[in-house]
């Protein structure tokens, strides 16, 4: 009894400790890459810290970066809880932003900001959900590898968005491939006028609460997790495994869609080509570092958001390539997942050792 309790305490301990260690190790490895003779590790780390948290304005920007990462992180975590790996958040969020823009530029909905914002967000999420339902259907009913399908669909989505921004939806009076500015009634406003943090952050926290509730307190969530844990067992228990897989992708696409529409409405107030620096791809690291836990995603999205913000500042100030954050992301994931693997192998080894003794 007591040994069982300590082992549970131990795993709870490692569940928090490994991601933190992974994040720190990732930052260290990533930073070593950009260290030169003139640029010591401490200078890089110090500048990163300053860029992310040094001033109220930097801190606010870190949170602004965290919002889309949080939504896409939730998206990846949601479907992956059912064992479906959605690598397509990037395509979903881009199409969602475009779809939200169709509503957001239309003055017909301008009679109430609340209605306009809500409709635009819904339009975005619907587009994301629709785009994600294709790999969802193929995975659930045909057994296609969802990673290949979502990845191919990312390229298609990004090219489609590019076509619309250069063609039918282009602002005719602008040189750049971008839509006209959204109607003011479709803006997601700033919380404090002097800082760029917008109400999208609150929408994100609400989404965390909903996703946490659905995953951990509802029958649907129980089915999702049981399909993710053991599809055969879930089928045996009478769960509609295929339906659950598809539903998990639809919800995932809708969440990824929120990232795109909220980003467009809260930050740029329009959609332009390349408005997402890859929030959909960062989502993988966000979700995995958080161990798929919605509450954990608040922290991991903030960590990676701060990192993007800091890296942006480093690029401007020192010409340090922003790509080094991908080294940080991948080192952190590989560390966290390998640490779990190592602990599992170690436990197995100890069990066999005890049996032998």
């Amino acid at each position, binding site marked *: 009894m007591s040994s069982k309790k300590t082992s549970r305490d131990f795993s709870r301990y490692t569940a928090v400790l490994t991601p933190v260690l992974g994040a720190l190790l990732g930052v260290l490895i990533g930073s070593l890459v950009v260290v030169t003779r003139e640029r010591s590790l401490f200078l890089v780390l110090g500048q990163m810290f300053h860029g992310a948290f040094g001033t109220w304005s930097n801190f606010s920007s870190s949170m602004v970066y965290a919002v889309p990462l949080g939504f896409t992180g939730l998206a990846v975590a949601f479907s992956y809880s059912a064992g479906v790996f959605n690598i397509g958040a990037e395509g979903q969020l881009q199409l969602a932003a475009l779809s939200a823009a169709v509503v957001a530029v239309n003055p017909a909905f301008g009679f109430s900001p609340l209605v306009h914002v809500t409709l635009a967000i819904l339009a975005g999420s619907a587009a994301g959900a629709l785009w994600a339902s294709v790999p969802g259907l193929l995975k659930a009913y045909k057994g296609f590898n969802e990673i290949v399908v979502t990845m*191919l669909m990312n*390229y298609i989505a990004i090219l489609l968005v590019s076509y619309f921004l250069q*063609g039918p939806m282009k602002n005719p009076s602008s040189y750049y491939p971008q839509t006209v500015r959204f109607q003011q009634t479709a803006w997601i406003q700033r919380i404090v006028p002097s800082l760029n943090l917008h109400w999208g952050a609150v929408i994100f926290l609400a989404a965390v609460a909903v996703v946490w509730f659905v995953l951990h307190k509802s029958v649907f969530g129980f089915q999702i997790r049981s399909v993710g844990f053991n599809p055969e067992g879930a089928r045996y228990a009478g769960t509609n495994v295929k339906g659950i897989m598809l539903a998990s992708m639809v919800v995932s696409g809708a969440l990824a869609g929120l990232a795109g529409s909220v980003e467009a409405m809260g930050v740029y107030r329009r959609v332009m080509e390349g408005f997402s620096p890859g929030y959909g791809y960062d989502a993988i690291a966000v979700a995995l570092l958080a161990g798929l836990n919605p509450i954990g995603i608040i922290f991991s999205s903030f960590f990676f958001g701060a990192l993007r913000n800091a890296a942006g500042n480093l690029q401007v100030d020192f010409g340090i*390539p922003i790509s*080094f954050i991908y080294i940080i992301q*991948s080192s952190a994931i*590989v560390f966290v997942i390998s640490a779990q693997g190592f602990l599992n192998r170690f436990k*197995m080894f100890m069990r066999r050792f005890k049996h032998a003794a």
Partner: protein
Amino acid sequence: MLHDILSMVFSEAFLSSSIRLASPLLLAAMGGILSERSGVLFLGLEGFMLLGAFFGFLGSYYFGPYVGILTAVAVCMVISLIYAVSTVTLAVNQVVVSVSMNILALGITGAYLRVLFGAHTHQLTTVRLRVMEIPLLSSIPFFGAFFRQNLFTYIGYLLVPVVYIIFFRTKWGLNIRAVGENPHAAETMGVNVSRIRYLSILWASAFAAVAGASQTIGNLGIFVDNMIAGKGFIAFAAIILGRFHPLGVMLTVFFFGIVDAFQLNLQAMGSSIPYQFPLMMPYVFTLIAFLLAGSGKAPKAWGVPYTMEK
């Protein structure tokens, strides 16, 4: 318009460019197929191709194209050990590590390109491998195009029979297939599952590296961020579509080469179609091919980590 398209498609130049565009896919797929058949899901093809393209470029930039190829292979094999240790030795989720390998490749290539060369990377070029005409064969009308290619394409041709022989004529290949179907049974028969899977991963990363290097040293002579642009995923899809058989995979990648040549020519013809749609074609066609052909029968233990206890 239609006449133009038809006369384009049935030209020797079109055949030649189809082959050229299929060759990185062929190299990557002939690498990946060993890993897949040994039961290890190798979604990292994309990332290793990108690393291969970059380190191939780097080696070639400083020491010439042949050193470039070797550099690409060496670096990719070393980095693939991260993948091998975590997925085979520590038995962690192959999909997750594959995806992180792809992210890692984006990071390493993007960061080092600028650390080494600064912000102005667009003028950097390296020597490219020239086309080698094979005497007699290259003078065959029309089909001579197969024998007017560069070294990378010939390596690709060679790999098809080599992989075929490995799979179906050697003990090693038998073991690879056994490990991919039922690692427990294979282990009982005295096969070292971990060793087979390590070798398969090293093989896959080595030829993904050559495939990537073919894009810089063989093709463009320059390195551009994320220049593989999904070719690794298309090669992966080709392995599935080709039913995990070297000959099936060869036919599939050739089909993808034709699609790619078609869209490039369509763009070059200066038609009124917005350029995004031709660019989309390789991805759309891969998806459609996937839908029409179905996913087929994969090795039974594909993607399942192996631990002796279970």
